[in-house]
């Protein structure tokens, strides 16, 4: 097995999909000759020609709408949004057409498009380059929302996204692009709709996805010193969501902290916490807690470390899981204020 990076695994997935299926087209801003600003499409134009991998005009609604038309003609477009926040101009196309065409037409038209979105922060990016925008997509029925946290998943989930009959928003945690791991490609990991236990543990479950998975794993490692044996579940596929794996883990451990990098309010973590509580109430020894980014616009680079949920914040949350049967003092304070 060789060591490779997530960026290289994504590139290999695109190349292999293009080699296997000539209907696959890859395009976006700087996606052609340059190979994308993160080099995820590197070499594809040279190998497959500029009718299969190409640059487009600078217009995100145009890119996604063009992909809709291509899909209607029987092709399989994979588009690159250059950065999370620059996908917003495409949101109308995504919400009104990409997500709905199958349903509007009772299955007569499907639009198997993959929209790749480099997302989230932790890379010292200036404003508009670090948004966690997954909740907007996850809140839109008709879209699948996928986010790999490992090199193997990056390859396997992207291949599956391209082969999937439904539109997929493929969220790539850009701080993990250059994380490396032993992996032999082509890799096949668990399919869409499956969460994976990355680290087994008995005392509490950390549920995380995308850029928060390494944070959760690190926290679990650090927690051993405090005497906690933590399980880490990697969600991987936000939509479709794997209730069964998450609930089974929490029923085993009886405690749960959901970790996400995105701002917390009305986020994916809130949804997960609610679902866990609905399914595991009688197995829970403490309220389900969330650790997330702050409810602020993504901060400037010199302040982002305060915003990003790190190991300490996760451990603080774990400490509040009523280990000694004492209610969380924060809830008591709120109750007396009311």
């Amino acid at each position, binding site marked *: 097995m060789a060591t490779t990076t997530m960026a290289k695994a994504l590139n290999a997935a695109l190349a292999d999909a293009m080699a296997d299926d000539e209907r696959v087209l890859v395009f976006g801003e700087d996606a052609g000759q340059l190979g994308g600003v993160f080099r995820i499409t590197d070499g594809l134009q040279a190998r497959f020609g500029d009718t299969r991998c190409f640059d487009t*005009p600078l217009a995100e609604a145009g890119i996604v*709408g*063009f992909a809709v038309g291509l899909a*209607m003609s029987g092709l399989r477009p994979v588009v690159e949004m250059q950065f999370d926040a620059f996908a917003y101009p495409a949101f109308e*196309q995504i919400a009104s*057409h990409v997500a709905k065409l199958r349903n509007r037409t009772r299955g007569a038209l499907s639009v198997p498009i993959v929209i790749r979105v480099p997302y989230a922060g932790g890379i010292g990016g200036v404003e508009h380059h670090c948004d966690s925008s997954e909740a907007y997509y996850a809140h839109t029925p008709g879209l699948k929302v996928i986010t790999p946290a490992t090199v193997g998943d990056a390859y396997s989930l992207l291949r599956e996204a391209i082969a999937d009959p439904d539109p997929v928003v493929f969220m790539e945690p850009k701080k993990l692009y250059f994380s490396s791991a032993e992996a032999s490609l082509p890799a096949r990991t668990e399919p869409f709709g499956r969460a994976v236990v990355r680290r087994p543990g008995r005392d509490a479950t950390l549920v995380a996805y995308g850029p928060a998975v390494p944070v959760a794993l690190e926290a679990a490692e650090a927690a051993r010193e405090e005497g906690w044996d933590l399980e880490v579940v990697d969600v991987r596929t936000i939509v479709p969501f794997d*209730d069964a794996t998450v609930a089974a883990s929490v029923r085993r451990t009886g405690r749960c902290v959901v970790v996400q990098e995105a701002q917390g309010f009305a986020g994916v973590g809130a949804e997960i916490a609610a679902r866990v509580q609905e399914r595991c109430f009688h197995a829970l020894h403490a309220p389900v807690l969330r650790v997330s980014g702050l409810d602020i616009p993504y901060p400037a680079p010199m302040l982002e470390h305060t915003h990003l949920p790190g190991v300490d914040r996760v451990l603080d949350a774990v400490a509040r899981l009523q280990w000694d049967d004492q209610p969380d003092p924060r809830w008591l304070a709120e109750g007396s204020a009311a």
Partner: protein
Amino acid sequence: MTTTPQAVRRASPRTRPAATTPDPAHGLLPAGEPVRLLDPTGTPLPAHPDYPEPPAEALSELYRRMVIGRRFDIQATALTKQGRLAVYPSSRGQEACQVGGVLALRDTDWVFPTYRESMALVSRGIDPVEVLTLLRGDWHCGYDPAARRTAPQCTPLATQCVHAAGLAYGEAHQGRDTVALAFIGDGATSEGDFHEGINFAAVFKAPVVYFVQNNRYAISVPLSRQTAAPSLAHKGVGYGVPSEQVDGNDPIAVLAVLTRAVAHARAGNGPFLVEAHTYRMEPHTNADDATRYRDGAEVDAWRDRDPVTRLETYLRDRGVLDGPTAAAVAEEAEAYAADLRARMNTQPAVDPLSLFDHVYASPTPQLVEQREQVRAELAAARDEDGDA
């Protein structure tokens, strides 16, 4: 600072010697006046150098479909008043554009309609009940877009312009000579997706005809609030797209211009932009009160330019249409409306459990769960009805 006359002269392009390179905008700009082959009374104008009159059979068919289209539109408006449709955006007055738009195409071509194009869709041969499904409210799109090569009627303004570019490029990429025709209204040309669509089509040389029906209003907002351009057709030059403007109430001119635009696209020359100057005689929809923003005199002036009368007069004068044929067409239109009326007067069956179909190719576990919950609710309601 003072400028010498000489400096002024040197700076002014007007006084430069005749340019040796051709004006790059040459051949892209529309005519200064809308193309017209018939005057408003139906009298033919001198032959147009660029737009030959379509053959007589095409004009007879144009007439037939316009008469049926108008009768359909009147019937749909009546059905709305009877509560059979939730809403209906009429295109009465725009018959030349509605029918001319689809008549210029082959069956294998694609149409990208808006909500305004019910008449165009029935003119394409789609079952009128399927066309009205969206407006009756039993589902969103009533026809099979893949089979009819007609995208769902598009309500998010101008978004269809980009789909047309992608579809047309995708067809060409796969070696097919399909043309896509995208309808769009005057107001919607202010939306970004109009510009992105025409720009993508131009850059990728996609065979698309963008067909703007400038009916002078976007609900209540007049054209002067949408643009300061000399005409909407002038927008093409900025994208390197040849453009034309046409009298949208002159059916022969509309068909002639669109025929040329479609041929241009099919020949691999990229997109073409056509603006038709027309007018909707009805309010925006049945729910709109047009007297709040336009006066009766304006509407009356357009009544005098009625496209159906104009074509009929011309065809009768030329001897292409006679009394019995016109009567037969009118009869066919009546029968069409009667059939539509009868079929729309039954309550459509809707199945709540179908809500969960086609959200995804196969339902997520969460949708399976919600479907089961609704199924149980429905069963419980049925039991209660049974007990009562």
